[in-house]
């Protein structure tokens, strides 16, 4: 104790300083350490929550991406199926149209052929008639005889029978 007193120790001053130290202890604990540590803890909690939210958002994003990918795959399959259906339908239509066109063309050809045949027959009849008339004219001029109807008919039939065009 004597040593301490040599360096200026006295109980009164010492107790005053103890009180000051306790006051500082109280002030810093109440106004600095308490609020600041609580704030640091609150910030730490918030960061942890943020991290968890971020993780959850990433997981949701991954799930959404998977869902989108699945939907895309499904849509691609649907689209492919629709394209194939369309292609098949188009092929069927094309075949049908081709058949129809062929059929129409055949009908046209047939009609043309029929018309040609009718015209040919008409032309032949006309020709036979004209030829018969020429034969009758020639016969009447050669024979100098006026041919009656029976003669003309017979000559026509004979001429027509002989002329095979």
């Amino acid at each position, binding site marked *: 104790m004597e040593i*301490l007193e*040599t*360096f*200026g*120790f*006295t109980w*009164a*001053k*010492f107790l*005053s*300083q*103890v009180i*000051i*130290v*306790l*006051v*500082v*202890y109280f*002030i*810093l*604990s109440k*106004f*600095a*350490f308490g*609020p*600041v*540590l609580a*704030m*640091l803890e*609150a*910030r730490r909690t*918030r960061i942890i929550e943020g991290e968890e939210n971020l993780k959850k958002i990433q997981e949701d994003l991954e799930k959404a991406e998977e869902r989108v990918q699945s939907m895309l795959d499904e849509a691609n399959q649907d689209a492919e199926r629709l394209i194939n259906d369309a292609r098949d339908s188009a092929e069927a239509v094309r075949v049908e149209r081709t058949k129809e066109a062929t059929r129409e063309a055949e009908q046209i050809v047939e009609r043309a052929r029929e018309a040609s045949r009718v015209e040919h027959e008409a032309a032949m009849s006309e020709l036979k008639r004209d030829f018969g008339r020429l034969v009758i004219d020639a016969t009447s001029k050669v024979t100098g005889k006026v041919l009656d109807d029976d003669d003309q008919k017979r000559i026509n039939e004979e001429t027509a029978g002989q002329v095979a065009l």
Partner: protein
Amino acid sequence: MDINVPGIYFNHMTSILAAGGISAPELSDKIWITNSIFVAAIVTIALLFFVRMATKKMQLIPNRKQNFVELVIEFLYGQVEGIVGKHVAPKAFPLLATIFIFIITANWFGLLPGVGTLGWGEGPSHGVIEEMHTPLLRPATADLNMTLALAVVFMFVWLWISVRELGLWGTIVHIFGPKGGLAGKLKLALMPIFLFVGVIEVVSIIFRPVSLSLRLFGNIYAGETLLVTMSGLGENVFNLGGFWAFLTSVLFPIPFYFMEILVGALQATVFTLLCAVYIKLSTSHEEH
């Protein structure tokens, strides 16, 4: 003509004693407050004012003052936690951080202009003192009463933490009991040695506040003395006078002011670290 006047302590080296002597003097015969108590009160008020300003409206996104206070407290908490462990840190941190912040503030406050150079003394005229006997301001930690108060308060809190952690019997066993996991006959054979070691440990614990307080007091008071010595070096060693004595009294201490800034921080760190280590040693469960 010598008169007792308040004034600027200019001519230091008529006395080699810094800050009014090794014992902090009362500011007046009628007032029991010493200059170091006065400075301690100023430091306390300054700390209160600053932390209130910084933490009055705390926000998740801090302003500059809040950010600075958070930085200091978070750093100190990390250091304390690293030494005493996560379990004890919440109990030990408030006192250890108080000790560090108060000591470093008080040490650096002592380097401000006017501390040790404004006060009452004897001189030829008003305003100029040749021999200072009562400085108005003295670094709070350059007073043994303050450093001892810090150490004694710490020791009480240390004892409370130790007993709370280990229990009263656990603390006694921790001090006097066998260490190193000994058992059986060897344990019984070595018990007297451990008891003797425990007595030595108790003596060392009793002397802890003395060593803590004298180390801090000695370093800060020596720093004050060094600055006073450097201030008077030109006049007393080189026999300079007038303007040159004044100039050297300003220039010579400057490098030592930087050193004292370092010493102030270092002594605050040493005091706090030792306190933390004492807590760690007394609350360690490893040996049980």
